[in-house]
C-alpha cells in the first residue's frame, strides 16, 4: 500500500472518528459553533430573499407560498438553530473551563444533544425539498393553519418533528449544564466567584429547563393531530387559543433564552475592556435570578392581547410585563456604569458589546410600548413588533454573541484576528442593522408576513430603506467570515491572555485534548487555584500551551492550513472519551422522523421501522457499554454548596423530572382547558371501563411498592430480593400494558368505534394515556437492563444508584397515572 495514502487515510479516519464520536466539551462546543454558523447562513439567505421580495410593491420574485415558507423557516432557523446553539457552543467550550471542570457532567448526553440538534435541523431544512414545500405557518406555527388540513404534506411534518428533536436536545442540555454548574465547580470556585458568562448560562438553562417541555408537549399534540388525526388544535374547543397559550408559555421564556447568554458575554467583555470591575455585580445577578428568570414564565399572554382573552387577563399580564422591564433597567445602567472612570479600549469585542447595549435600549423601550394592551391593538401583527424583536434578538443578542466570538477567538484558536477588519465589520453591521430595522418602527400599519404589498399603501420607501440596510448588514458579515477563516489559517500567534482578563478560562492549561478521561469525576485536581484570593492567581505569566497545536478545532478547515496540526494523531489519548452511541441515536432520530413524515406513502412505515431498529440497536449498545463499564459515570457525592450530600445522578434525575412535570402538566392542562370549553362530554363510565381502570391503577401502585422493596433490598446488600423486586416490577408493568392494550382494543371495536379520530374525548384520551404508556414501556426496558445488571452482580450495598434513579422515574410515572385515572375515568 502506498504509505502516504495509507497515512492520509488514517488521518482522515481518526479525524472522522474524532468529530463523529467525540464527547469532549470543547469539541462539541466547536461542532455547535460551526453548525450554528451554517444555519445562520441558511437563515440569512432566506432573509435576503424576503427583503428582495419586499423591495418593490407587487413583486413576483417569490410566490406567496414560497414567501410564507421563507418567513417561517427564517424565523425558526435563526432563533432555534442559529442564535441559541451559537450560545450553547460558546457555553460548551467555556463554561467548564470557567469553573475549572474537565468536562460537562454527562459527556455522552452532551454529544447526544448536539446530534439531535443537527438531526432536527436537517429535517427542518429537508422540508424545503418536499412536494408542497416546508412549514409555512410562521415561526409561531399558529393552529389550525399548521394542521394537516391547512398545511398538508411531509414538509411541515419534518419541520415540526425536527423542532421536537431540537426541543428534546435543549431540555437534555439544560439538565446537563445545570448539573455541571451545581456539581463540578473546582474547589474554591464559589457562586460568588463564578464568572458572569457561566452565571448567565445557568440562568439561560433555568429558562430552557421549564420552557421547552411545553413546546415538546404542544408539538407532540400537533404531530398527533397531523399524523393520526386527533383534534387538539383543529376543534374550536381547544383550537387556536390552546396553541397560542402553550406556544407562548414556551415562547416568552425563549426570548430571554436567546438574550441572556449575550448579556453574559457583555458582562465579561465590559469590565475587561474598561479596566474596571463589573459595577453592581450583585445587583445584576440578583435582578436576573429573582425577577427576570421567574417572571419570564409569567408574562406570556402579552403575545395574545388581541386573541380574545378577557380584559382582566390582559391587565394582569400587562402589569407583569412592565415589572419585568425593571430589572433590565438596573442591568443596563450597571453595564454602562462599569465604563465610568474606566480606560475604555475600543477593540472589536468591546465595540460589539457597546452596540449590543445600545440596541437593547431601543428594543427594551419599544417592548414597554408593546406591553400596553391598548397600544398593542394596533401594533400586534405589524412591522412594529418585527422591529422590536429584531432590536433585541439581532441587536442585543447577536451583537453580544459576535462580541463573544471576537473575545474568545484567540483562546479557541491560539491566534489573533485582524482588528481592522473587525472594526469595519462592526461599523458596517451597526449602520446596516439600523437602516434595516429602524424604518420598520414606522410601518405601524403594515401587517407582518405580507408576501407583497400594493404601491398605494405608502410603504414602499420604508421597505426599500430596510432592504438596502439588509444588504449592507449581510455584506458586513463577510468581515466575520474573513476573520474566522484567516485567524485560523494565518493569524499571528496570540499572547496567552491578550485582553488581561481575570476569568479562569484564560489561565486554564488549554489544549484540545480531554484533560481527563470520561471515567474520573470530571473535576480538575485540587490545584488550589481558587483557594488563594481571585486576584493573586491571575494571568501573569501562565504558560500558554495553546500555541501552535490548537487550530484543529475549526472543524478541520483543511489539514494543510494548520500550523503544527498535531492534534489529530494525538487525539487517540481521548479514546475513552469517544462514543459512537450519540451519533447513532441521532441517525435513528433522522430515519424515524423521515418515516413518520412519509407515512402517507407506502414506504413510510418501513423507514419508520428501520429507524426503530437503529434506535433499538443503539440503546442495546449503550446499555452494554454501561454493563461493561466502558463509559462509566462516577457516582460521587456532591461537594459543592448547596449539594453536598447529593449524588450527582440523583440530582440529574430530579432536574429531569421537573421537565417531565411540565410536559405532563401542559398536557393535562390542555385536557382541562378543552373540558372547560367543550359543550358536550360523555358521562364517566359510559365509554371507559371503570373496573378495568381501577384494576390497572392498583397494578401500577403495587409496582411502585415492588420498586421500593427492590431499592430497600440492595441498600442492605440483598441481591436476591433486589432481583425479585425488579422482576415483579417488570411483570406488573407488563400487566398494566396488557390491560391498557385490551382497553384500547375494545374501544376501537365499539359499535361507534372510539378510535383516534372519534372526536375530542378520544383525542385527549389516546394521546394522554398513550404518552403515559410510552413512559411505562421505557421504564420496563430500563428494568430489563437493571435485571441483567443484577444478574451480572453489578449492584451492591455501595453501588446501587441506578436502581434508585430508576425508582424515582418509575414512581413519577405512577404519579402521572394517579392523576390520569380520575381525570379520564371518573370525572
Amino acid at each position, binding site marked *: 500500500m502506498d504509505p502516504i495514502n495509507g497515512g492520509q487515510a488514517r488521518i482522515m479516519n481518526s479525524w472522522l472518528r474524532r468529530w463523529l464520536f467525540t464527547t469532549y466539551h470543547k469539541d462539541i462546543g466547536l461542532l455547535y459553533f460551526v453548525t450554528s454558523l451554517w444555519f445562520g447562513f441558511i437563515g440569512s439567505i432566506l432573509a435576503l430573499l424576503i427583503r428582495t421580495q419586499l423591495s418593490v410593491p407587487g413583486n413576483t420574485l417569490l410566490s406567496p407560498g414560497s414567501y410564507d415558507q421563507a418567513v417561517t423557516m427564517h424565523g425558526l432557523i435563526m432563533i432555534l438553530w442559529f442564535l441559541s446553539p451559537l450560545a450553547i457552543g460558546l457555553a460548551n467550550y467555556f463554561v467548564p473551563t470557567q469553573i475549572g471542570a474537565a468536562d460537562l457532567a454527562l459527556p455522552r448526553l452532551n454529544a447526544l444533544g448536539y446530534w439531535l440538534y443537527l438531526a432536527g435541523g436537517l429535517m427542518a431544512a429537508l422540508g424545503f425539498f418536499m412536494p408542497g414545500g416546508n412549514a409555512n405557518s410562521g415561526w409561531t406555527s399558529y393552529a389550525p393553519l399548521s394542521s394537516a388540513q391547512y398545511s398538508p404534506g411531509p414538509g411541515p411534518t419534518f419541520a415540526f418533528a425536527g423542532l421536537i428533536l431540537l426541543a428534546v436536545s435543549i431540555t437534555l442540555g439544560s439538565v446537563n449544564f445545570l448539573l455541571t454548574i451545581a456539581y463540578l465547580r473546582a474547589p474554591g470556585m464559589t457562586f460568588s466567584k463564578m464568572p458572569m458568562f457561566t452565571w448567565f448560562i445557568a440562568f439561560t438553562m433555568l429558562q430552557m429547563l421549564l420552557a421547552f417541555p411545553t413546546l415538546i408537549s404542544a408539538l407532540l399534540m400537533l404531530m398527533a393531530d397531523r399524523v393520526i388525526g386527533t383534534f387538539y388544535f383543529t376543534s374550536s374547543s381547544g383550537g387556536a387559543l390552546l396553541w397560542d397559550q402553550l406556544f407562548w408559555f414556551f415562547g416568552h421564556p425563549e426570548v430571554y433564552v436567546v438574550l441572556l447568554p449575550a448579556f453574559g458575554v457583555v458582562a465579561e467583555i465590559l469590565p475587561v475592556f474598561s479596566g474596571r470591575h463589573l459595577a453592581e455585580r450583585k445587583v445584576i445577578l440578583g435582578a436576573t435570578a429573582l425577577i427576570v428568570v421567574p417572571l419570564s414564565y409569567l408574562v406570556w399572554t402579552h403575545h395574545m392581547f388581541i386573541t380574545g382573552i*378577557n380584559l382582566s387577563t390582559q391587565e394582569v399580564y400587562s402589569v407583569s410585563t412592565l415589572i419585568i422591564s425593571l430589572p433590565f433597567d438596573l442591568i443596563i445602567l450597571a453595564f454602562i456604569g462599569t465604563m465610568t472612570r474606566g480606560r475604555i479600549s475600543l477593540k472589536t469585542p468591546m465595540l460589539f458589546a457597546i452596540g449590543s447595549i445600545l440596541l437593547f435600549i431601543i428594543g427594551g423601550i419599544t417592548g414597554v410600548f408593546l406591553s400596553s394592551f391598548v397600544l398593542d391593538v394596533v401594533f400586534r401583527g405589524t412591522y412594529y413588533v418585527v422591529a422590536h424583536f429584531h432590536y433585541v434578538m439581532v441587536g442585543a443578542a447577536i451583537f453580544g454573541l459576535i462580541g463573544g466570538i471576537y473575545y474568545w477567538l484567540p483562546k479557541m484558536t491560539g491566534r489573533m484576528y485582524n482588528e481592522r477588519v473587525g472594526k469595519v465589520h462592526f461599523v458596517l453591521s451597526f449602520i446596516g442593522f439600523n437602516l434595516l430595522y429602524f424604518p420598520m418602527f414606522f410601518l405601524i400599519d403594515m401587517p407582518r408576513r405580507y408576501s407583497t404589498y400594493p404601491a398605494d399603501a405608502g410603504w414602499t420607501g420604508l421597505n426599500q430603506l430596510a432592504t438596502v440596510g439588509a444588504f449592507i448588514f449581510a455584506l458586513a458579515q463577510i468581515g466575520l467570515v474573513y476573520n474566522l477563516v484567516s485567524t485560523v489559517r494565518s493569524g499571528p500567534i496570540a499572547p496567552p491572555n491578550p485582553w488581561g482578563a481575570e476569568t479562569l478560562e484564560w489561565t486554564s492549561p488549554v489544549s484540545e485534548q480531554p484533560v481527563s478521561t470520561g471515567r474520573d469525576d470530571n473535576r480538575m485536581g485540587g490545584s488550589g487555584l481558587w483557594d488563594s484570593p481571585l486576584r493573586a492567581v491571575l494571568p501573569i505569566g501562565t504558560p500558554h500551551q495553546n500555541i501552535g497545536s490548537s487550530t484543529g478545532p475549526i472543524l478541520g478547515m483543511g489539514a494543510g492550513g494548520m500550523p503544527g496540526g498535531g492534534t489529530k494523531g494525538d487525539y487517540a489519548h481521548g479514546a475513552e472519551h469517544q462514543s459512537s452511541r450519540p451519533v447513532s441515536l441521532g441517525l435513528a432520530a433522522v430515519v424515524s422522523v423521515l418515516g413518520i413524515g412519509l407515512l402517507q406513502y407506502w414506504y413510510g412505515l418501513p423507514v419508520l421501522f428501520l429507524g426503530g431498529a437503529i434506535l433499538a440497536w443503539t440503546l442495546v449498545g449503550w446499555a452494554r457499554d454501561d454493563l461493561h463499564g466502558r463509559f462509566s459515570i462516577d457516582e460521587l457525592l456532591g461537594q459543592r454548596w448547596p449539594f453536598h*450530600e447529593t449524588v450527582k445522578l440523583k440530582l440529574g434525575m430530579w432536574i429531569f423530572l*421537573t421537565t417531565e*412535570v411540565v410536559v405532563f402538566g401542559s398536557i393535562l392542562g390542555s385536557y382541562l382547558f378543552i373540558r372547560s370549553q367543550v359543550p358536550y362530554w360523555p358521562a364517566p363510565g359510559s365509554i371507559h371501563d371503570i373496573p378495568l381502570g381501577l384494576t390497572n391503577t392498583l397494578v401500577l*401502585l403495587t409496582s411502585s411498592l415492588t420498586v421500593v422493596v427492590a431499592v430497600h433490598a440492595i441498600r442492605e446488600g440483598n441481591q436476591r430480593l433486589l432481583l425479585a423486586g425488579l422482576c415483579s416490577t417488570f411483570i406488573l408493568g407488563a400487566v398494566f400494558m396488557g390491560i391498557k392494550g385490551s382497553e384500547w382494543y375494545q374501544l376501537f371495536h365499539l359499535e361507534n368505534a372510539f378510535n383516534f379520530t372519534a372526536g375530542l374525548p378520544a383525542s385527549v384520551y389516546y394521546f394522554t394515556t398513550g404518552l403515559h404508556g410510552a413512559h411505562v414501556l421505557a421504564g420496563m426496558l430500563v428494568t430489563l437492563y437493571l435485571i441483567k445488571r443484577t444478574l451480572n452482580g453489578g449492584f451492591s450495598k455501595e453501588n446501587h444508584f441506578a436502581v434508585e434513579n430508576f425508582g424515582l422515574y418509575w414512581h413519577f410515572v405512577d404519579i402521572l397515572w394517579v392523576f390520569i385515572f380520575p381525570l379520564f375515568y371518573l370525572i
Partner: protein
Amino acid sequence: MKIATTLIVWVYLVTATILEVVIYSEFPGSTLINLSIGILAASKAVLIVMYYMHLKYEPRPIQYLILPPTFLVAVLILTLVFSVGH
C-alpha cells in the same frame, strides 16, 4: 425508612383509589365530588413523592426543586381556564 411505612403508604394509596371510585359511583357529577376526588389524587401523589421517592429525606435544595415546575403548571392551567369568558 422502614418497610412498615412503605406498606402503610401502599395501603393508603389503594384505599384512596377505591374511595375515589366509590365517591364517583355513589355521587357522580357534581363539582364538589370532583373536587374531593381531586384532593384524594393529590394526597396520593404527595405521599408517593414524599415516601417512595424519598423526598422527605432529601436535602433541602432537592426538596425545593419540585416547587417551581408545580407552581408554573398551576399558573398555566389557571390562565388557560380563566382567560376566556368572563
